[in-house]
């Protein structure tokens, strides 16, 4: 970055775009020019600032002041009152604590590792990433570490897959390294489709080079020369930024042949998906990458020995990879100092629904659910009592206010028959009908079931039809028991996690909100979903 007295960070993401960020930027440039501030104040277009639902968001540094819902007409006041006279404009100021950290800084309850550059650097400029220490970890790996030492560091750090399953990353890498054959692949799973989740999109949009660097490190560690990023087809901006980042990294000799004269070569390509939730499952993703319909494979064999084109393949989620550069630079012991003994590090969550400040946060593994909802999310929107929290996305479980003290990590949630999943935290206050919400989940699964295995294909349809009977008030306790039976069969017999995991939302909803389901089934009026009684 050029030296400038003040930086104005402007979040340019999909959300800001449709709130009119282009007009705000144009006004900002115009007013700065007029006031002769162009040299002193630098505008930095960044990815998200981690704030959602607040329209166009600006941050002024070094003051650490955040503005929300900024309109072009507000720009003049911000420039004249704040940038010229140094008084923040209270009217537009966001009440939230500054969510953007300097590298390694801890802000309130947030600890930013994978998001540390998001909202801080210009994602379209590789030099800003390098200025933050970018590609140092790759250089360290190539020149100061053997591939086995890289794997050992990641293993000792205890990094576990952030895609949902929590499998130890170092173990996966070691298996691919040991698998025979000269041809191996590194795949970044960016097919983010879990409802309520957009962490990977914001990492890709806000800090694409971090993922490229991590993939090159993974390639060096396991002995792969090719990496592929499979991005959800709908993520147009992520795809553009990744392609741009790859071209820049090539130009700087950080990707391609003989990286930094080390003798190691690595290429990365971006491939778009085409709209299929099941492709987030790693073997379905691999099938899709081979140009086929995304049907999950029967496992074993696993991708670590038989992956893309039947070759040993690492498949890592975006957020998992995003932790890798810091682990190499700061060491496994540092990583272990964050989080819990069995789940070290941080986790990114999307807090959504009836909260005052919906958005993205990164906290240490093991942070209690209560902190997420009441401290970072600001509590329920209208102060209505909390009714339920759906955690982990549509394939997650419903929790109730009694579960607020559960710690959010892979192991603590398993104890509550819940999963961390993608890290989506959907908060519902008492204006929510759980029967209605479960309907939305069931229709989603019926639509996204890939149709390959019978338990899932037939089960998802059967569940929607049973649910419709409940909703119409033409059912009884037996219909609810039948739903539980269907998801149990799906859990045991489905080929992939899509069918297996539907047991989580269905069971938890039926168990924790049984009276609500029974009263719908028996035709009583619901004051919440406004269904009329029979």
């Amino acid at each position, binding site marked *: 970055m050029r030296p400038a007295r003040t930086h104005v960070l402007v979040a340019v993401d999909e*959300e800001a775009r*449709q709130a009119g960020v282009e007009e705000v930027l144009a006004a900002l440039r115009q007013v700065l020019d007029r006031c002769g501030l162009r040299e002193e104040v630098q505008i930095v277009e960044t990815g998200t600032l981690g704030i959602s639902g607040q329209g166009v968001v600006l941050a002024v540094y070094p003051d650490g002041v955040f503005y929300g819902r900024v309109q072009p007409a507000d720009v003049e006041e911000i420039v004249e009152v704040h940038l010229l006279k140094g008084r923040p404009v209270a009217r537009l100021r966001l009440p939230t604590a500054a969510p953007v950290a300097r590298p390694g800084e801890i802000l309130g309850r947030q600890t930013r590792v994978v998001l540390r550059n998001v909202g801080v650097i210009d994602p379209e400029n590789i030099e800003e990433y390098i200025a933050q220490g970018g590609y140092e970890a790759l250089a360290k790996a190539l020149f100061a570490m053997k591939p086995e030492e890289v794997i050992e560091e990641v293993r000792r750090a205890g990094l576990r897959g952030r895609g949902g399953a929590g499998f130890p990353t170092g173990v996966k890498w070691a298996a691919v390294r040991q698998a025979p054959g000269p041809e191996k692949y590194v795949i970044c799973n960016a097919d983010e489709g879990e409802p309520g989740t957009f962490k990977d999109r914001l990492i890709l949009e806000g800090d694409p080079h971090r993922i490229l660097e991590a993939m090159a490190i993974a390639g060096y560690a396991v002995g792969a020369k090719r990496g592929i990023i499979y991005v959800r087809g709908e993520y147009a901006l992520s795809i553009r930024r990744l392609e741009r980042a790859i071209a820049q990294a090539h130009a700087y000799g950080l990707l391609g042949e003989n990286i930094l004269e080390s003798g190691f070569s690595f290429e990365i390509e971006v*491939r778009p998906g085409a709209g*299929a*939730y099941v492709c987030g499952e790693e073997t379905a993703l691999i099938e899709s990458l081979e*140009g086929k319909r995304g049907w999950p494979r029967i496992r074993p064999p696993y991708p670590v020995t038989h992956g893309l084109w039947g070759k040993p393949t690492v498949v890592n989620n975006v957020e998992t990879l995003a932790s890798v550069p810091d682990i190499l630079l700061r060491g496994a012991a540092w990583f272990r100092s964050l989080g819990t003994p069995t789940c070290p590090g941080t986790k990114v969550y999307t807090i959504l629904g009836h909260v005052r400040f919906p958005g993205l946060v990164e906290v240490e593994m093991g942070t209690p659910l209560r902190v997420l909802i009441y401290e970072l999310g600001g509590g329920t929107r209208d102060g209505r009592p909390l009714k339920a929290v759906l955690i982990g996305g549509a394939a997650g479980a419903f929790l109730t206010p009694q579960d607020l003290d559960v710690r959010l990590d892979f192991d603590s949630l398993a104890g509550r028959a819940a999963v961390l999943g993608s890290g989506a935290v959907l908060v*519902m206050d008492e204006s929510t009908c759980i029967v209605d*919400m479960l309907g939305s*989940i069931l229709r989603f699964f019926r639509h996204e079931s890939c149709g390959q295995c019978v338990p899932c294909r037939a089960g998802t349809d059967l569940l929607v039809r049973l649910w419709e009977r409940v909703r119409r008030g033409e059912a009884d306790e037996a219909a609810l028991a039948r739903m539980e039976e269907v998801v149990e069969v799906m859990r045991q017999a489905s080929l992939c996690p899509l069918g297996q995991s539907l047991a989580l939302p269905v069971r938890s909803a039926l168990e924790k909100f049984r009276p609500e389901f029974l009263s719908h089934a028996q035709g009583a009026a619901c004051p919440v979903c406004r269904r009329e009684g029979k």
Partner: protein
Amino acid sequence: MEKKAILQRFPRSPDVLLALLHELQRANPQNYLTPEDLALAAEYLGLPLSRVRDAVTFYTMFSLHPRGKHVIRVCDSPNCHLFGAWSVVEELQRLLGVGVGETTPDGLFTLELTSCLGACGVAPVMMVDDEVFGNLTPQKLREILARLKEEG
């Protein structure tokens, strides 16, 4: 010919199939893949036509039927549902006079549903072509449609 030019941007390897199909579909003003497109892709990549068709019919972003100039996709995932996604769908059906999966007689709009678009902070959300619109209200829907109609 334009389609040949699209093909030649890709290596002749089956793994580029989806990316290639996206480009062919984008080049069609009616937003769909014609039988000719499928045959071209199959021949270029050395795949049986049945393999290409098999893939195309699996993914929701591809269509084998003509669609409107603008494809409107409303998110009906749990979070948008919580914020009234279904009333957005009903309002659009009323304003456009078509059901989900249908195209307006003037060929301008096709109405579809989609799973989560990852813009949950501004629910309810829809995507028109490549652009995301959030915080939808009946008034906002009317304005968006009016603007698109004006653009033709």
